[in-house]
């Protein structure tokens, strides 16, 4: 490592923040693009499982709230792709890489949504897991990304509330409604445990080394478990992991080790809904290509 890069590394490790026009090592720039791009892709792909439920949402109020959440998530993707564009990668290139499978999106968006219970679990617990990661990005060494995270976290807090409200309505409803939530939780627990990634020590995680993230994967998972396991259990729901418990001595949550090989397979496009979601994104991109052409030629 040359001395300039070493100096940069020490700067970000002592909480220094970097602006778009500042000098940065190539490796930092490429790690940033990779990390932020996966986030942008996830916001964009994350609306597809919810989109399926706009017409099937049980009340008008729920349809409106779900539509608003979807608009928020697409808005996040737009904000994030803007940040990547300023780092040198155009949005069209990001979308090309997404639909061709060259770039990744979060594991939780590779799964189907079977019932309205899944929609509630996604809005409550997937968004809760996401906000744990996103709050840690408020301290990202790349300042333009850290700044837009403020707006994103603000909007995510509505989503968690919306999800929790959906779940509360169902668990206080009929036995069948309660059952839908329990079944959805059974389906989503493994992806939720995968969500924060394998427990690689923070000091070996390049995203932490460059202070793109401000905490390690396991730390994020522990925060999620600490915050949400009690909230799940108080509703009478059962978490499908008999080994899950808090070690009162260490304060750490213990759980059955998730299958990390499966996580790797899912995020590389081999999840149960990966192919279908990418095909849909590809199709909708082709469908609306004319809009871009018309708008750009009219503006020119």
């Amino acid at each position, binding site marked *: 490592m040359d001395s300039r890069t070493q100096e940069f590394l020490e700067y970000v490790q002592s909480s220094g923040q970097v602006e778009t*026009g500042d000098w940065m090592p190539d490796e930092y720039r490429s790690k940033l693009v990779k990390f932020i791009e996966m986030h942008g892709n996830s916001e964009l792909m994350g609306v597809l499982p919810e989109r399926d439920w706009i017409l099937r949402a049980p009340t008008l109020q729920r349809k409106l709230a779900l539509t608003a959440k979807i*608009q928020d998530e697409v*808005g996040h993707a*737009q*904000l994030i792709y*803007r940040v990547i*564009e*300023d780092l040198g990668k155009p*949005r069209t290139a990001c979308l090309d890489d997404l639909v061709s499978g060259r770039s990744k999106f979060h594991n939780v968006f590779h799964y189907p949504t079977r019932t309205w219970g899944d929609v509630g679990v996604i809005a409550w617990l997937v968004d809760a897991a996401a906000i744990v990661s996103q709050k840690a990005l408020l301290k990202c060494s790349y300042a333009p990304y850290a*700044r*837009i995270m403020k*707006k994103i976290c603000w909007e995510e807090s509505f989503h968690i509330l919306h999800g929790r409200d959906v779940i509360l309505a169902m668990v206080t409803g009929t036995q069948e409604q309660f059952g839908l939530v329990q079944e959805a939780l059974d389906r989503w627990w493994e992806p939720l445990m995968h969500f924060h990634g394998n427990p690689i020590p923070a000091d070996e995680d390049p995203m932490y080394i460059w202070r793109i993230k401000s905490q390690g994967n396991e730390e994020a998972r522990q925060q999620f478990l600490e915050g949400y396991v009690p909230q799940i259990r108080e509703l009478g729901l059962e978490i499908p992991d008999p080994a899950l418990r808090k070690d009162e001595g260490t304060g750490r949550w213990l759980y059955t080790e998730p299958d990390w090989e499966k996580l790797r397979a899912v995020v590389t496009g081999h999840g149960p809904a990966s192919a279908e979601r990418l095909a849909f994104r590809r199709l909708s991109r082709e469908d609306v290509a004319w809009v871009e052409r018309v*708008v*750009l030629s*009219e*503006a*020119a």
Partner: protein
Amino acid sequence: MIYEVFRQERKGQPFQHAGSVEAPDERFAEIYAREQYGRRQESAALWLVRRDALSEIDDFPDEFDLKYRRVDGYSIKTRLREAREKAGTLETAPGGEP
């Protein structure tokens, strides 16, 4: 075209940089900025500025040691003590020791 968006949260507050939108022209930039930064009534006003219309200054050299322009440029402790001693008010000075 990139437009920088500045947002005023409530009347009377300063406009702060909120982010940017990409738009083919001002009309679209306005629509995008309204959607992105105003759809929850979270802004009292927005400013849109084309990025290429902004000029940035980010270096402030201090070759001539301009600290006389700042409060840390003045150390009056010793002189004030001397003045009070001379006037015989050191013991009775309000607030005691300077």
